[in-house]
């Protein structure tokens, strides 16, 4: 792929014609985007080689940042030069071959990019956030300089590479390459702390759950090929626009528009952690936080949204929008479901994880409610504010030795050096809660409003979906600020965690040796969220001491350095600025601002119907009020239950230690519900009991069958001659004459018989 970069200039001049037979508007161009994979490969190779080359510095990190920034610039330049229409940048022929001239007799899986505004929208935040988070990682991973650094940045760059392939692919096959590639990187990065069994299990789980969805995607690909005879978007969209499949049969009410969208949906749900597939994402929080920010919040998990947005023409081509209804309902249910879990668990990073699932549910609901613009906008804003949140949480984690339990941290924002982190967290939380004026507010509003406007004739019970989403919005505001109030406000108080970095380098806070430390903690120290006992917190209180001097303590919470702060600031600013995009007027779309313009110019364009109009109020203006109200209520409840006294808690709170709050009094009253919610509704256990264990049982049975039945039959067949031999053995006395006599007698007998017969 490196040669692509080298030959960039010539190919810019003379790109080969692609899909000459499609007759659509695609034109060659956008070769500049070839720089993106090229730079990623370059950075990945450099990072990988830095291991064997024994580079023990941050150079690979900075190199990656530079390359990713370069990639971002390439995307930006392409965007600036992009007007409308579709350009196809041809790289090389990947899995391309032909065995006939008819439809469906050639497989075209080129390494080529389909450049339209949807692609560019996604690529802008993928590469932009990629570069930003790479910068953050440079500092975050500083403890692992060396082999770990090489591993980390290799996977990181390969991730951006795969994500670019996924987003920019000109055909579904290349999309699948990226799809699996991001899965691999996700696997490698979740399992980055490979000595932690929890991380390894989480990585495995993520990969396998994704694979299950991928099966749907593969089958969807195959069905697409069968129906349309191609996997390239350009000819595909041409046929869908014409409403026919490869044989010219109408698709509107055929199996094509039912089966393929459902299969693709399965893939999308797997990657984006929806409904049955969500279980991998919370566990994925075992990875380093920048990874969670980039992969498991901002980019990779939105691949499912992207896939459906990309294939939106096919979804929309169905008469009864069956698949879209399903998408919407699944999204809404997931949103609510994971929000309930987010409300009850104590691990702030996992709270963010569940919140991501919930917000992804929003996006899918948006897609399903015929608001692709809203979904895309929410994806964009979510990418920024969720990245901000994760980076902030990561900074806390980094500073406190991996501590994530919100009952063991308090008043972090007031500690020296953590100001920026607190502010960034606040920005992110406001966005996530949908406080009026923030980007998150507008993007969420677009989806909600559409939900109340979409006629029930197009989607099954859209209003119900919208109510569910509205409820979720309130819960979201609650759990977001629950985490914020508990960790960032209140008395300064902390208990350091058991960060993997510290473990690796043998310097544990208590100054104990590794072995002793292990003895004290045993295993399973990865998931503090499940712990309810809070030993030793009291010993480490530092009530109201703003001048808390860390040097007198064994543990030194180190505040973030410039790289982390810089990326936090940029990220937070972007999250704020994203709101402005809503007000950008474009000639391409009536609403949705800049994103609306981008979507309208792409294949995902869909003119959503507006039917709601009560007393002259459009659904949007109604939603402004309602969702603002819901969001603020959620915050207020959070403040009442979790906030400290005084202005920090909006004068509602009463908390004065890290561990206790008003919520503690409330929880027992909820009885089992709270316990079950905290146990994540026992979904993992259910899966374990009803899926994993039976499957493993079948595997054991198969193994026994193999050993006893299949192999046993073979062995029995092999033993048959031996058995027969054992029966006949006594006749073999070993005396030569015996054999000879037998033979002679036999011959005599046979001859006699012959004689008798002949006569």
């Amino acid at each position, binding site marked *: 792929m490196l040669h692509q970069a080298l030959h960039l200039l010539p190919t810019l001049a003379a790109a080969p014609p692609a899909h000459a*037979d499609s*007759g*659509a508007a695609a034109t060659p161009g956008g070769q500049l985007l070839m720089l993106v994979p090229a730079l990623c490969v370059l950075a990945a190779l450099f990072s990988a080689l830095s*291991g064997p080359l024994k580079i023990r510095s941050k150079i690979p990190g900075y190199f990656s940042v530079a390359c990713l920034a370069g990639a971002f610039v390439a995307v930006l330049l392409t965007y600036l030069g992009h007007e409308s229409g579709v350009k196809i940048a041809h790289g090389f022929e*990947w*899995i*391309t*071959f032909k*065995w*006939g*001239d*008819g*439809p469906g*007799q050639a*497989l075209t899986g080129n390494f080529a990019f389909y450049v339209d505004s949807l692609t560019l929208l996604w690529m802008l935040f993928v590469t932009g956030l990629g570069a930003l988070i790479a910068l953050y990682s440079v500092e975050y991973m500083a403890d692992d300089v060396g082999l770990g650094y090489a591993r980390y940045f290799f996977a990181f760059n390969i991730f951006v590479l795969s994500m670019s392939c996924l987003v920019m692919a000109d055909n579904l*096959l290349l999309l*699948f390459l990226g799809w*699996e*590639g991001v899965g*691999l990187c996700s*696997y490698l990065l979740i*399992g980055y702390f*490979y*000595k932690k*069994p929890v*991380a*390894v299990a989480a*990585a*495995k789980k993520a*990969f*396998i759950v994704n*694979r299950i969805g991928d*099966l749907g995607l*593969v*089958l969807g690909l195959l*069905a697409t*090929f*069968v129906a349309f005879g191609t996997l390239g978007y350009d000819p595909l969209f041409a*046929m*869908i*626009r*014409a*409403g*026919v499949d*490869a*044989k*010219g049969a109408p698709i509107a009410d055929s*199996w094509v528009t039912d089966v393929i969208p459902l299969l693709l949906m399965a893939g999308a749900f797997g990657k984006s952690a929806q409904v049955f597939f969500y279980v991998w994402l919370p566990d994925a929080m075992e990875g380093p936080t920048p990874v969670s920010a980039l992969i498991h919040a901002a980019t990779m998990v939105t691949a499912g949204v992207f896939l459906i947005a990309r294939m939106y*023409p096919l979804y929309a081509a169905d008469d009864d929008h069956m698949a879209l209804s399903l998408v919407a309902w699944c999204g809404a249910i997931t949103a609510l479901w994971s929000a309930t879990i987010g409300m009850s668990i104590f691990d702030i990073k996992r709270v963010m994880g569940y919140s991501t699932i919930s917000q992804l549910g929003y996006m899918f609901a948006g897609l399903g409610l015929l608001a692709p613009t809203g979904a895309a906008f929410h994806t964009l804003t979510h990418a920024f504010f969720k990245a901000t949140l994760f980076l902030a949480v990561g900074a806390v984690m980094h500073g406190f030795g991996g501590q994530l339990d919100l009952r063991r941290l308090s008043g972090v924002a007031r500690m020296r050096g953590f100001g920026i982190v607190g502010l960034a967290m606040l920005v992110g939380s406001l966005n996530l809660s949908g406080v009026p004026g923030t980007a998150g507010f507008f993007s969420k509003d677009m989806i909600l409003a559409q939900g109340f406007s979409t006629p029930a004739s197009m989607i099954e019970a859209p209003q119900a979906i919208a109510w569910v989403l509205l409820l979720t919005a309130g819960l979201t505001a609650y759990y977001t600020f629950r985490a914020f109030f508990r960790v960032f406000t209140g008395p300064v108080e902390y208990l350091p965690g058991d960060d993997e970095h510290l473990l690796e380098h043998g310097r544990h806070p208590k100054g104990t040796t590794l072995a002793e430390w292990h003895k004290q903690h045993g295993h399973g120290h990865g998931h503090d969220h499940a712990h309810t006992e809070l030993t030793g917190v009291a010993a480490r209180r530092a009530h109201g001491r703003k001048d808390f001097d860390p040097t007198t303590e064994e543990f030194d919470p180190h505040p973030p350095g410039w790289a982390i702060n810089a990326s936090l600031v940029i990220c937070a600013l972007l999250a704020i600025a994203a709101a402005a995009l809503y007000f950008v007027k474009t000639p391409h779309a009536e609403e949705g601002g800049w994103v609306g313009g981008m979507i309208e110019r792409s294949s995902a364009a*869909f*003119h959503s119907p507006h039917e709601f109009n009560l007393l002259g109020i459009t659904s949007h203006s109604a939603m402004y009020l309602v969702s603002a109200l819901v969001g603020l209520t959620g915050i207020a409840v959070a403040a009442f239950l979790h906030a400290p006294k005084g202005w920090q808690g909006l004068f509602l709170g009463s908390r004065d230690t890290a561990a206790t709050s008003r919520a503690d009094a409330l929880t027992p009253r909820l009885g089992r519900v709270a316990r079950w919610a905290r146990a994540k509704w026992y979904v993992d256990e259910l899966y374990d009991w009803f899926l994993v264990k039976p499957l493993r049982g*079948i*595997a054991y049975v*198969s*193994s026994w069958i*193999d050993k006893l039945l*299949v*192999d046993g039959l*073979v062995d029995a067949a*092999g033993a048959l001659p031996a058995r027969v031999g054992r029966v006949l053995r006594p006749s073999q006395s070993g005396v030569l004459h015996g054999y000879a006599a037998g033979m002679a007698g036999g011959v005599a007998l046979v001859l006699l018989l012959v004689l008798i017969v002949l006569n």
Partner: protein
Amino acid sequence: MMLASLIIVPLAFALFIAVGPERSAARVSLVGMLATLGLSILAAFAFDWGFGGQFQFGMSVDWLPGLGLTLSLGVDSVALMLVLLTAVLGPVCVLASWTAITERVKTYYAWMMVLQAAMIGVFAARDLVFFYICFEFTLIPMFLLIALYGSTNRMRAATKFFLFTFTGSVVALAGLLYVAWHHAQTRGVWTFEIDALELAARTLPPHVQALILGALLLGFAVKVPLFPLHTWLPLAHTEAPTAGSVILAGVLLKLGTYAIYRFVLPFAPEAVIEYAYPLAVLCTIGIIYGGLVCWVQTDVKKLVAYSSVAHLGFCMLGMFALNHAGVTGSVLYMLNHGLSTGALFLLIGMMYERYHTRSMKEIGGLGARMPVWSTFLVFFVMASVGLPGLNGFVGEFLCLMGAFQASDAWGAGLWGTTPGDSTVGGTRGSLGPWVAAVAGTGMIIAAIYLLYMVGKVVFGTLREPPGHASHADHHAGDAHRAAGLPVDLTRREIGALAPIAALCVFLGVYPKPVLDAVQAPVERTVTTIAEARGKPKFRPPVELAPPAEHAAEGAHP
């Protein structure tokens, strides 16, 4: 002469090794393998890839003209690829045995060279008898490699391997001889030229073809191995020395698939059409069953061995899809499986050399101890799982694609209905998609068991066998030094793995040359099948409806 030299050179080196001193055997063998590799690369350059469907480098020497026996050689692009695969794995195997084999070194390497010659002979043969001789002759060196250099249960494994595969191929021989006899009956001449027999076999009535199919499959499916006939494989793999496993997985199994590709499909096309669906179901069962059995293994090598059962299920599924995509995928799968699974066995062998155990109960978390080894392991596991961008994916996807579309290739006689015309919506239209969907779960199971293995062996907390407890600190233990091996891989070992890894990446990122090269032979096979169906191969091309005017305004009402 090109091909003859490819067979003669390894044999000559085998002779050198046999008469030469014990100490230089490994080096001579390496030189011999490299010479073979060089020759095969030369052959690849001399080959006219534009005419890949024709047999090139043909040569024919009369052997016993009275019986119509000749020594005729020739390769088309598929065979040449497999020759290349064999040649590539040769030096790798020698490197893998460098320190592992310490006794009877001469015998070992001499047989290895003989094996190499026999395997190349199988792919290069254009005469049935010569093919069969080479096919069977591979058993003897392999038997000895397992029986003399294997681990504890080696004698049983070797015997089982030998008897199982030999019994099968005797039946296959009967089938092949019947075809030759039929040729002699109808044409009046005895010949064993594969081309002539191919034409003769197709004139057989369908029920005889079915018998031929059964006989050939019984012989060749054992070698593949197809689902119920696989039990020799795990045992042979676990007991064989590393190089033996590599060759076994890399090339010997391909002898079976190649034989099916070369004989079963062209010799009995009508019967294949008839029985392809049940066979595909069998492959599917093999995929899932093999995968599940993998999952509960504790012996790493056995796990990878069972994974071959699952993987070759995909390969055969593509083959029995009987359409272009499927057969192409199947051919690619042969190459890819040879590379990635061969490399996995190599890696496990390296681990075994260091720890003398392969049980996942005793070892774990080796990522901390052997980063380079672990990197390679993860890499090849990913190739094996079928990650796009690495070699495994291309073949797997095409096989699935073939199966998905296979409905209209599969015969209907057995099921009493007429073949569906379109793939989905025809009478039997949904069979292919269902088979593909069920087989597709094999992808998931592959991820489960391979990642399970990686999770146990590479990741997690470091666990080493009791004898190696002294390595808990960060320097090499005495046991390693005793074996002359450092903790992590040596340059020799990396040298053995790196070329395979490079090939994996190349074939994954740019499979185009291979795809193009195999088109012509696959075309030939698929056309044979299509002709046997008595239907025109190509459906008349349907005009693409031009995009209507109003389409631009929006797809929805």
